[in-house]
């Protein structure tokens, strides 16, 4: 799954997700990808979020909605991501998840569980994309 957030130079934001879901799924199964607030979420007033992982579990917690609302409550992107992952871990200690969060000024953070999650970003005058590795909670 790719979940992406874009920040235009004007400050306007957008987010999106695209995935082919879980392999060997029961036909008709849909995971977190297309669910607004789970696969991705954005409010230009505060920031945006993108997620990946065990979609059957994650879509029950709307982790990206939670992360963006955490930003609105004053958390840093890093803390906002960690809080959203911890809420899932409390009920599903084995869940595989990855959350990347960015505020509307481009400050970013990520959190994950069950594997080593990574995210990529490129902004400002950067000549190439940088990949950040996030140790699992």
């Amino acid at each position: 799954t790719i979940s992406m957030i874009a920040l235009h130079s004007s400050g306007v934001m957008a987010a999106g997700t695209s995935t082919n879901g879980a392999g060997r799924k029961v036909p008709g199964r849909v995971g977190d990808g297309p669910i607004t607030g789970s696969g991705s979420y954005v409010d230009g007033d505060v920031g945006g979020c993108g997620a990946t992982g065990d979609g059957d579990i994650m879509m029950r917690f709307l982790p990206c909605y939670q992360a963006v609302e955490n930003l609105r409550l004053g958390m840093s992107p890093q803390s906002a991501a960690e809080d959203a992952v911890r809420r899932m871990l409390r009920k599903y200690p084995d869940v595989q998840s990855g959350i990347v969060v960015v505020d509307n000024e481009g400050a970013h953070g990520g959190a994950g569980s069950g594997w080593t999650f990574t995210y990529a970003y490129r902004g400002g005058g950067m000549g190439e994309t940088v990949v950040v590795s996030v140790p699992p909670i």
Partner: protein
Amino acid sequence: SPGLPMVINTWGGPFTAATDAAYLALLESETSALDAVEIGCSTCEANQCDGSVGYGGSPDENCETTLDAMIMDGTTMKSGAVAALRRIKDAISVARAVLEHTTHTLLAGDFATDFAIANGFVAQNLTTEASAASCAQWKAGGCQPNYRINVTPDPAQSCGPYAPTSLNSSSSSAAAAYQSRGSPEGHD
């Protein structure tokens, strides 16, 4: 923050082609944030990235690949999405058509396919030789792992077709406990 414009997305490796495509597009004044997200995700759909995006990945029990996508505007908070989209490759672009040409948020299955075709998208087979072969191998191995529980024949041993087994109230929540799946197929 590296400054704006900026693109950030899940995963590295093959996904950075999407990051670059979206970022470079944003350097063009006429590209909107929504355009950049569509360009970035479309790059992964075309390249299949790590196999978890786009055609030819994650076949279901019938060996069919279906696609899920959403796109959201951070100013209007409007969102467009497609779920279990069949026979159309450009999932994120169809999601954008839902956003721009309906007041809905989510269309699903064959109806989403009909909407895509009515919006000029081309129907095509999303199965590749590789996905068909991996699915045939999975079936030959007894369809393991799978997502079935509380059915007969035993889903830990056998393919379907499956029939539900009756549950007494105490067993259903215990039996439905989420079992972590180590295999790559276990996630979106």
